[in-house]
């Protein structure tokens, strides 16, 4: 269920999060997702662990901007960008070597753990998760090789 700005106003303690979420920062209410006028991109932070950064120009952290809606899509209403789009975008724009070590079909290779805002992506809908502004996605390789 998406939080609205009304929810924030009703439950807010003035600190930007609800009292119940204070003990558990993972339940922090996100800022309203509605884009402001003229804003058509979202910022996504990417982090790589377990040695996976070696495939991404050896940089453990990246901050990227994605279009809010999937470009060149005939869908009506426009489709918000999701993890499927992000993985595809990463393969085309960020991955510097050995694509087979990261991707598998539309998704990521088995053995790569994905956390969206610190939560397991299996609980968030995996590839169908719709990305929001300032989301943080962590990819950790658990494959050991050898």
């Amino acid at each position, binding site marked *: 269920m998406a939080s609205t700005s009304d929810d924030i106003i009703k439950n807010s303690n003035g600190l930007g999060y609800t009292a119940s979420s204070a003990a558990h920062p*993972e339940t922090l209410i996100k800022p309203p997702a509605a884009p402001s006028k003229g804003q058509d991109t979202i910022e996504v932070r990417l982090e790589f662990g*377990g040695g996976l950064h070696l495939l991404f120009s050896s940089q453990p952290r990246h901050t990227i901007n994605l279009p809010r809606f999937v470009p060149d899509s005939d869908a009506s209403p426009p489709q918000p960008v999701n993890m499927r789009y992000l993985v595809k975008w990463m393969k085309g724009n960020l991955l510097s070597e050995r694509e087979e070590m990261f991707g598998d079909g539309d998704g990521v290779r088995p053995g790569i753990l994905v956390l969206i805002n*610190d939560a397991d992506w299996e*609980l968030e809908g995996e590839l169908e998760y719709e990305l929001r502004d300032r989301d943080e996605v962590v990819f*950790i*390789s658990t494959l*050991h*090789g*050898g």
Partner: protein
Amino acid sequence: MSCGNVQDVPEVDVDGVQAEPEKVTMPRKKRVRRIDKSLCQRCQATKSMYIIRNVTYCKECFDAAFYSRISKTLNPALKGFDSFTSSRKSYLLNGSRAPRQTGDAVLALSSGAGSTSMVEMLVSREFIGKGDGKIADLTKGEREVVWDKGWVVYVEFAGVLEGVDDRSEIVKQWVDGLGPGIRYVGLRAEDVFDAGLKGRLHRLGSGLDGVTPTGGENGATVALDVTDPDLPLFSVPESSSSTTTPLEHLRALISSLPPASRPALLSSILNSLLTVAAQTLPNITHLLLGETSTRQASRLIAGTALGKGWSLPLELNTVHRLDERLTRLKPMKDVTTKEAAIYCHLRGLSGWTRNERRWELAGPKGKRDARGKGAVSSLEQLTEHFIAGLSVTHPATVSTINRTGDKLVYPGLGKGNIPDCPVCQLPVDPSALQWKSRTALTSLPNKILPGSTAPVSAPADRADGVTRSHHMIEAQPWTGDGPHDNLAPLLCYGCLTTFTPPTVVSKAVKAEAKPVELPIWISDNIARARKEVGRGEMRQQIGEFLLDGQE
């Protein structure tokens, strides 16, 4: 609500007695407990963050479950299964903290998620003390440590893996920051050729400088011709081996093996270095490995494929006694790699860990890669990918494989003293060579080369300073007696397949091939096996003069 079937006429049995009409009811729907996966299934109050084996956890509950899983494996093992009796069962299995151990622990660290989370947890949960010998005052709520001191042993393989960075300094920095009770021991894969390794470890352990390094047991090194299926052994004069560095020796050995066999050799090197460190450092009673259940499942399948079935139960055991003093433990056995990776992420260590050890990069690339038949070259790697795929499509499979592994029993129990394989140091399958000779056409000791009439005989002396120690003998299944000029009869089936040369070796390659020196631990074990056989021979010779009790 029931709906009796009114149309049914009560049946009359043969005695004319009317049978009791059976009440037919609508089958009651089995109540299915709906689980809200958005909530933590443990505390039922907080948003779930992680899903492990179909159970959802919030952060706090994940942390608690992780600790509980490790302590339930570790504590019973330390409480002493030797004295396991039914009356002590609840005490042993309740997961309460194990008593203080008499010695210290060696923690094997690869900087992967499994071993990193193990080391971090053992230190943060005060399983390892501060090395000051302090006894906790339980009346003041202090927690008793299990080991007074811990040695973290890291083995660097960068020297033999092309393009892999040396991380020993980074690892050392992290280990040094863990606290006063933890000491860092940095080893390199090529140390298996370093005669001064034990001396270095002694010096490190005692904190004394100037102790004379002690080398291998016999000081002599042995070389091996890996192009011959019999694996003939050669003795190497000390003068010829001293000019080459340990790293060059290791690279030569790795290059001489087929690419698919190299990870198995590197695994044996890792095991041998960890064992040497644990046996040489002072007062060590436990060697702890961070092998997760995912790796165990992979090891089980790969070990089966590699022909290690005979000793596999010993390799998979949570508790394995290496000698009278030293026990190897696998406290992470019930933790998946995913859990370990999440734990490291929660501790801010996921950027630091390296889960890929990339052993497939050791040595020159094989022809398969050049022909584009796929980069995967070892059974270990293939198995790992298979297990990773299974854990996504069939999430319960990893634990099922491990449960099967737990049921395996070592077949050599009660069969007397079975010799150990000089490479993997696990008991040798007595019929390994016979089995090999039945299944593969690899041993042809007296084969005749096309165009020649005489059997191939090894040159007596070589220009490179390597000489045959004995005349070549015909390869025969080892019966437990007789001298060993070949390595093959001493090896277990798994190591035999590791050292087996490719089926087709070109004449040019064979002509160029030189015997490669074997690591010190293998040379020592071969020497020990020879001594034991020598004793056996002597016993045979004087057997008729011995009294019954003396045999």
